[in-house]
């Protein structure tokens, strides 16, 4: 009797724990974005022709030390220069309120409205049509085909920067074996993988590359799961790889931890991660970072907007030539191979090398 009661009780306890755990998980993952958005509102005095920028983040919100933060840095730089204020919006975990959040920003008079991340690619068209007088921009998604003239696409040649990361990894590898950890197996992250693999093979044809993803397409947990990032990277290091490149957003911390634990090296992504990690032990293993200058793209768009020169309906592409993507040199670990890197850089810019976008 006792045992039977316990068992039934434990089902309830399981249900309770799971429900509570889910709720807590929800809190934890958007805490950074939500919590820090407090400081966002007080940017400017709200003058008549000052910028009133709406900034809609990708899942995870601000505080990811990577992609979203980079967009915010661009907005902040523009505000410092031009004056104005910013209103931030972070979607919920399931992404169900993305459309409504974007529309609410426009409805409340924020102009321009910047959507951070290709996740908005589906919804930006319909929202932009509902608010024809508002100027929209979207990062990582091409809009030229939509034929809506109040949306601008800001896209990056991630494969070109990743190519250089691959070159650096291949040249620096002692074991002849390197790895790639992708966050979510989506076309965007596959661009990173394709460029990285092509670069590594170009520099060293016999290189062995292991590429793995944390989560499959449609499951976005891979961008915010350091534990699984660590497991994948650890497996690669244990298997003989000595440099792992990650394109996994917030999961990258796990890759760095694995590198520290194994005494091997890692390559960061989006921001100069040597600067964004706090831990000196992790700084020591970050050989370089593939910079994707979302901040520059955002700032340039806002400057154009302030000058009234946003064309709309077009895509602006940032590549190696326009320094929209590059490798960071903080820490000095790739200083000795700069000459080779520059050679490949020139070949890509001149069009001698065409970097693939799919693996």
């Amino acid at each position: 009797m006792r045992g039977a009661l316990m068992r039934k009780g434990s089902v309830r306890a399981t249900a309770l724990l799971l429900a509570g755990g889910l709720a807590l998980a929800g809190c934890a993952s958007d805490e950074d974005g939500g919590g820090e958005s407090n400081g966002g509102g007080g940017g400017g005095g709200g003058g008549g022709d000052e910028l009133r920028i709406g900034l809609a983040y990708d899942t995870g919100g601000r505080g990811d030390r990577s992609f979203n933060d980079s967009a915010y840095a661009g907005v902040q730089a523009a505000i410092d220069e031009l004056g104005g204020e910013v209103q931030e919006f972070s979607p919920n975990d399931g992404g169900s309120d993305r459309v409504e959040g974007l529309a609410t920003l426009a409805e409340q008079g924020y102009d321009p409205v910047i959507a951070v991340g290709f996740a908005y690619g589906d919804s930006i068209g319909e929202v932009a049509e509902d608010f024809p007088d508002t100027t929209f921009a979207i990062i990582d998604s091409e809009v030229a085909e939509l034929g809506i003239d109040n949306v601008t696409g800001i896209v990056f040649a991630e494969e070109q920067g990743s190519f250089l990361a691959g070159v650096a990894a291949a040249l620096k590898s002692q074991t002849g074996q390197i790895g790639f950890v992708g966050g979510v197996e989506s076309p965007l992250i596959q661009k990173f993988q394709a460029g990285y693999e092509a670069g590594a093979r170009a520099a060293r044809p016999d290189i062995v590359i292991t590429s793995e993803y944390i989560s499959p397409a449609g499951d976005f947990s891979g961008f915010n799961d350091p534990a699984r990032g660590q497991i994948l990277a650890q497996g690669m290091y244990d298997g003989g790889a000595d440099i792992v490149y990650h394109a996994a957003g917030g999961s990258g911390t796990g890759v760095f931890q694995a590198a520290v634990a194994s005494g091997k090296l890692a390559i960061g992504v989006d921001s100069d991660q040597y600067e964004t990690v706090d831990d000196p032990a992790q700084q020591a293993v970050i050989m370089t970072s593939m910079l994707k200058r979302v901040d520059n793209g955002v700032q340039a768009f806002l400057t154009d907007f302030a000058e009234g020169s946003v064309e709309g309906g077009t895509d602006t592409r940032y590549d190696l030539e326009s320094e929209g993507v590059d490798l960071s040199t903080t820490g000095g670990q790739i200083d000795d191979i700069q000459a080779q890197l520059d050679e490949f850089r020139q070949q890509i810019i001149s069009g001698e090398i065409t970097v693939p976008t799919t693996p």
Partner: protein
Amino acid sequence: MSPASPGGMGAVRRAGLALLGPVLALVVALVISGIVIAAIGEDPFTALQVITNLGETPAAQVQAIVVILNRAVPLFLAGLAVSVAFRMGLFNIGVEGQYRLATIMAAAAGAAVSLPAPLHVLFIIVVAMVVGALWAGIVAVLKVTRGVSEVISSIMLNFVALGLAGYLLTGPLRGSAEGDGIVTTSEIPESGRFPDLTGVLTGLGLAEPRSELFGFLVVAVVVGVIVSVVLARTRFGFDLRATGLSPSAATASGVDTRRMVISTMLLSGAVAGLIGLPDLLGADYEYGTEFTAGLGFLGIAVALLGRNSPLGIALAALLFAVLDRAAPLLQFEDIPASVVTIIQGTIVLAVVVANEIARRLARRSAEREGARATGAPPEGGGGSGPGTPPTPDVGPDGGHRIHTGVPGTPEGARP
């Protein structure tokens, strides 16, 4: 709690006790959330005002209602799917995987065929229900043949379902062009889309909202009514509830619990299959990497909050939707959107705790009345959960109570 409990407790009192749980929980949750908001230096009353204010203009108010209803419909279906299994003592955590897989299959099937309008929609709905049911059926088969706990297998199958959906989406069922940022299935043609209810709103003299009200609302209501009739008024529903309350007693009175596990999981999975359809047939017309996620897990919370009754689940879904709608708006008042998650979490926790308290109170008073009426210890072991009756009597079944209702499983063999 059990319908077999001796009469004597007034209906009014019973209803009062039934309402006591949720109301108490709501108050406790609001107080806790208020303290949290105050602790981060914001005004709790501003938050409350943002959550309850539907908008200044009539158009904004109608839009707010549309947003709330559009969110509540999938949440209601998710809660319903979870609750059907719950009523039989089965914990279907696999709803998330069931609806994701059902939605992608329905989206692909819907885009692949061409049928006249009503048939096309019906076809998509049937595909979704069948896929959801089959996926949940795996859990049931594992349980009755191998004795695998449905909690474990349904969680595991979520990962398999997400992986499978990802494979299908990027592989055989891919409809979007190579290189597009968002991978989707092909778009469902006009004839396969569900007409929206915006006309009804404007017909009622309301302002025209920016978004369209999901026509699937009607389906959700019909499904809710059907499920509640099936549970309350049919032999199947009686067997299901009886097995949930006491599997051994149900078996003793001739219920085939193995068959019940399978049919209940099939029903739960079929309802789960519908969860993605409001979005699919009302807004997106394709399944893609950006398709709304997490509804299956939210369904567990909604079912707990709604105490497994279809009407309660409808109210719980509406409450969650009202809170979700406020998430973007709270950010505009510099209040973190996590406040919404905190409120939802505390409500669910508080409801579970309050339900338990209300249940103990109800049982104690029933026992008192029973004792007065018969002079003997009442209703041995009629309860469930940690609410151990004050009299440690042994039930008529000798304590062979299992929550699963499957005789012959290792669980059942244990004394």
